[in-house]
């Protein structure tokens, strides 16, 4: 389990992270969302013990980040936003190097490397030089490096930046697989659609402050005070508008095009079903009648101001 308690980092008068607190359980994939310079990388660096927090504390599986950094390091796999790869070694040599410094016994090293390569689909590239790998493969190699010592927490800083759509899809599958294995994963990104696909928890950070934390659904619910319904009719949307606008619990009705309209609805599921039935009874012939949910991008844009540190 990972617990952050009011973690703060300042550089001189500059406050990079303003007291972040949250908790993650095994199997959680946490999407850390924020603009460039919002404080994501600083937080991840503090969690990886590379930066000393100015105040606050954090524990991983009961080990304090500041007091027991060696124990914490054994339990984390850190992948920075740059790969930091050695070009002049082979893929297996690169993993062997990290397996050795993470204290994997020499008798188990080969098996561990093979497993990491297999999980990241790099087995065929085992004897290739690192410099000959594509960017996607290098990124997977860096992830493989994070897995050689079987960590409980993976810290992935912008893992998908610069990857093509297929590589992103592969990465998503890999992270879901790792989550099923019980690993906690923190993924920082400012590319939101990819995060909402596989993160069960997200946090939005701006100017070093964690504005929101929770599951995507919880966050959307917290932001959305009412439902927004989108309806499509065979007949003219204007005809439907005049009927819908006078119904109870309905507000802000707007036509989108000749057959579609949208409106705010403050009722529950039962009320929504009754409204649909009323439309049918009034002879409006609806083709589609659904609640429009906000996505992560909408939430992000609504809670952040765009200000940077």
């Amino acid at each position, binding site marked *: 389990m990972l617990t952050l308690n009011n973690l703060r980092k*300042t*550089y*001189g*008068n500059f406050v990079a992270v303003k007291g972040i607190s949250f908790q993650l359980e095994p199997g959680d994939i946490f999407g850390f969302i924020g603009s460039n310079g919002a404080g994501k990388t600083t937080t991840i*660096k503090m969690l*990886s*013990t*590379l930066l*000393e927090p*100015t*105040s606050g504390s954090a524990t991983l599986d009961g080990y304090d980040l500041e007091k027991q*950094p*060696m*124990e914490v*390091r*054994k339990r*984390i796999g*850190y992948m*920075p936003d*740059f790969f*930091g*790869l*050695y070009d*002049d*070694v082979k893929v297996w*040599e690169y993993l*062997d*190097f*990290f397996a*050795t*410094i*993470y*204290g994997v016994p020499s008798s188990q090293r080969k098996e561990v490397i093979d497993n990491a390569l297999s999980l990241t689909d790099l087995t065929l590239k085992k004897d290739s030089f690192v410099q000959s790998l594509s960017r996607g493969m290098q990124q997977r190699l860096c992830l493989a*490096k994070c897995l050689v010592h079987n960590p409980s927490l993976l810290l992935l800083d912008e893992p998908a930046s610069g990857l093509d759509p297929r590589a992103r899809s592969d990465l998503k599958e890999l992270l879901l697989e790792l989550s099923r294995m019980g690993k906690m994963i923190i993924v920082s990104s400012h590319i939101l659609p990819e995060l909402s696909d596989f993160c069960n928890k997200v946090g939005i950070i701006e100017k070093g402050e964690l504005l929101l934390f929770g599951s995507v659904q919880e966050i959307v619910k917290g932001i959305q005070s009412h439902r927004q319904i989108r309806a499509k009719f065979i007949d003219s949307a204007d005809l439907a508008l005049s009927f819908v606008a006078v119904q109870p619990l309905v507000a802000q009705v707007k036509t989108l095009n000749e057959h579609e309209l949208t409106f705010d609805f403050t009722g529950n599921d039962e009320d929504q079903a009754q409204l649909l039935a009323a439309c049918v009874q009034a002879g409006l012939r609806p083709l589609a009648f659904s609640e429009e949910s906000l996505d992560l991008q909408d939430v992000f844009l609504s809670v952040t101001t765009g200000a940077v540190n």
Partner: protein
Amino acid sequence: MAVRDWLTEQSRTFIGNAQSVRDFRSQLRGYRSMFLWLGYLSVLLAITVTSYDTAAERVRSEGLAAAQMELQNLYAAFMTLLGLALCLIMPTMGATSIVQERQRKSLDLIFSAPVKPGYFLIGKLISNLRYAVMLLVLTLPMAAAGVMVGGATWIDVLTAFVCLLPFAVFSTSIGLFISSRAKTATAAIIGSLICVSLFLLLVSPLSMAMMDSPFVGLNPFTVASAGSASTNLSGIEVPAWLISVVCFVALSKYLLLGAESSLTQQKPEIVKLRIATYFLLVAYSLTLVFTGSMRGSSAFSDAFFLLLLLPFWILPFVIPIVVCYSFSDSKRLRPDGWFSLRSMVDGRVSGSLPFLLSCVVILFAGPLVLFPNRGDGYQGLLIALTLMFLLWSGNWFASSFGKDAAGARLNGVGITAAIAYLPIAYIPYSFMVASRSGTTPSLEEFPYSILLGGGVSPQNTIISVIVLLGVAGIFLFVGSVIQRKSVLQRTTL
């Protein structure tokens, strides 16, 4: 159990070190090492051919004995060349090691793993030392030729190698230390070469003062004669090679601790570095006493003078790092009091004054124990303690201006250098007096030295202490006024 853990950690660090294995793989794959060795062999070959040609010429003109003399000189030439190669190559290689990792951004990957910085540095050291060993091995055939023609014995060759290998460790450690702080490879290389040059400048008078100087093994250009040199310490004959091995190993360890501390800025590394500083000061103090005692009878006075001035050169770079702090930096660099003996070695701000004062006491302890009847030693200690207090207060004052600890340190370097380098004014002063009166004044006659207790007398000591404390008081008063304002501003904000 603790011993077993320690042994396991040491064996993990020194045998099969992952960093050295990785570096070695890269070194073998690159062409750099091959070009280096080929170049070195070419130079050796050129010297051999030239010497052989000269020797053959002298056989014809002056006879066999003269030719043998020529070939005997060949051995000394090889050793000098080897020393030169080590002086240039090892610090350069050490200097690029960490900077390259930093530029490749792989340091974060290594330091987020459960390894101590010492493991990483030892790995770098071992991988670079392979070049030194290779250079030594390549010189063996030439050295053997020297033995065959009578220029040297196998003992000479062995002792020279025993001195050169620790020198290679030391010069690589200089490179690693500079590299741990430098931002670019060029800066690191230049800085390392300057440091090695300064070291050679310091040991040259020590090693060349007389033919059998006990410090002959410290200078890579004089190691050829280290075989026969020794010194008598309390009735025990200590060979020069042993002195050089002990000195180089101790200095290398200290430099590596410095590099560890600057790479991590963590408490355990700082504690180790400060405790090692105490040991180093004891060794320095004893060396000072030893060379000082030989001043009258030999040419050691230059060496003594250089050694005496050494702390003044180093102080501006060390004291700001120890003292300067900031209200807005990490916990360790935030002010936590004026004077705490418990924080003396852990790097906290409140421990800086007791640490500096204890350094002065340790420095004076050796001479005071060895020469208890010299009363001026205690006066010197009092002045040195007051001077250190002044330097501390100057850096405390400097911390009032810095945006952060790094800015404060920059100010601190300026203030400390201004105080510590004032004795340099002796040089123009001596020229001025010499041009007027025709005689060079002694250091004791220089006005500033009265401030430092020059020509120590109780009267001078009282003047020194009052003046130094007065200036320190001004620093502390102005500094506290500025800092109080700054804290008030912060609270208001």
